[in-house]
């Protein structure tokens, strides 16, 4: 069964009004379980809208979005999604550990199970000693790691990420990319990742989905079959070749 199956999905905002926006036109996309796909494109190409369609945060104007063979809305009600956004979106009034435990509380986990899981997740993102701190005491990169730990805490089958590293400096960003890949390999989740950084898309994903703007459409699917995604990959000629390929596809999409 496919992780995500999108058939002819469109999205029109403010239909029939003067500020009508045709955000997405006829999207068809299939994602297999365990894939790491990146949505890339110019700003306003509808990549965040597409992510929100998959996550059932907004409904398509027409067409269908299915996740693991069921409607996206059902998947959301079944809590199949973990989400992370550009802003970490942590709750200041909860400690770091309690932030990670929030989805678990909503799912009715017992206190002991929650404690154990948040400790485990903090180990994973290497922030164990900050469990009792409040989010604002942490740097931007650390907050983002907490947000990712929170998204992964209940082992969602699908992880949706909207430019989660967009606000980070280059050093932290590259470090976080390596961390995310490590976590992805350890947990077997399917990831949909929105970015507008070409090197980030190539470094992270097994497939880059290139989008064009107005209305948002899929212009190209580029498989990235690079092995050993370590630090050395960034200096590998094969990596640069893929970067060039994505860049060309983006330019053609814009033309």
């Amino acid at each position: 069964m496919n992780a995500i199956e999108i058939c002819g999905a469109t999205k029109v905002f403010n239909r029939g009004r003067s500020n009508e926006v045709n955000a997405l036109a006829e999207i068809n996309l299939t994602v297999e379980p365990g894939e790491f796909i990146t949505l890339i494109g110019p700003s306003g190409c509808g990549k965040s809208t597409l992510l929100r369609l998959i996550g059932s945060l907004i409904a398509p104007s027409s067409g269908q979005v299915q996740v693991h063979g069921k409607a996206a809305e059902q998947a959301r009600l079944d809590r199949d999604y973990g989400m992370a956004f550009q802003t970490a979106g942590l709750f200041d009034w909860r400690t770091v550990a309690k932030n990670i435990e929030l989805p678990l509380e909503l799912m009715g986990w017992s206190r002991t199970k929650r404690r154990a899981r948040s400790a485990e997740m903090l180990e994973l993102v290497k922030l164990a000693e900050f469990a009792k701190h409040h989010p604002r005491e942490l740097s931007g990169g650390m907050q983002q790691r907490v947000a990712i730990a929170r998204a992964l805490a209940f082992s969602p089958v699908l992880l949706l990420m909207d430019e989660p590293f967009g606000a980070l400096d280059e050093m932290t960003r590259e470090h976080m990319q390596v961390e995310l890949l490590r976590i992805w390999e350890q947990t077997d989740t399917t990831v949909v990742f929105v970015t507008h950084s070409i090197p980030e898309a190539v470094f992270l994903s097994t497939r880059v989905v290139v989008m064009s703007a107005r209305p948002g459409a899929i212009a190209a699917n580029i498989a990235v079959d690079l092995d050993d995604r370590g630090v050395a990959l960034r200096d590998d000629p094969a990596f640069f070749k893929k970067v060039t390929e994505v860049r060309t596809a983006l330019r053609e999409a814009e033309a």
Partner: protein
Amino acid sequence: MNSARITNTAKSFSAPIVAGLVIFGVWQGALGLLDPDGFVLPAPIEIVAALVDNWDAVSQGARITGFVVVSGLGVGIVLGVLAALLVTRFRAANETITPLAVAINAVPIIALAPIFNNWFGLTSPRSNQAIVVALVFFPIFINTARGLTQVDRSQIELMESYAASRSRIAREVRIPNAMPYFFTALKLATSLAVIAAIVAEYFGGRQDALGPIITQSAGLTRYDTAWAAVLAGTAIGAVLYFGAVLLERLVMPWHLASRNGSHE
């Protein structure tokens, strides 16, 4: 963490107290040098003496005015918070209550004091309480409503992605988010409430409250007694303000933590 918090609290209290003592010292000293007539400005020592001499009347006045302030503040807070919850929950309520509240806020409430006396009876403290309620309501309502609605969009989307109910989102996100807004309004409301009560008392209500003590003493040129009553009013305002500050620190320890710098 606790000892640091106590030190911080002590620091934030001690500085204004020292400053206040310095001001009183300069005030006393300047009057000694310039020696104006007593009714222009009595010396702090004379005010304290008048307070001691008229302790029964002033403390009774403070009890009455204090009751008007506290009860009016309490009702105003409850109504303001309820209205804020209502307008953020129901769109129809927002479209009717919000413009109405803005219109009411444009009314100079204190100017209604003589009219309220007519409604509630000239010597009833009810009219004074009504003035306090009306004045406190607005800042509490507007600020709390703002805090309930101005929530980080991604926090709401996150809760929706967990299929959280509306009431759960209110409890986990909107209400904690509104806390700093509410306390800002509460601190403002404490001093507004004292002003409202005393000015309202100038026009009516119980005749042994602080307002009438001030007007009557001033009329009899007993300015030191008038100042003693002002001092009592100040004490009510100060106690309520610091009560609000303490409550804020108890309810929102995270707010204090966020000011102590970050690990970069």
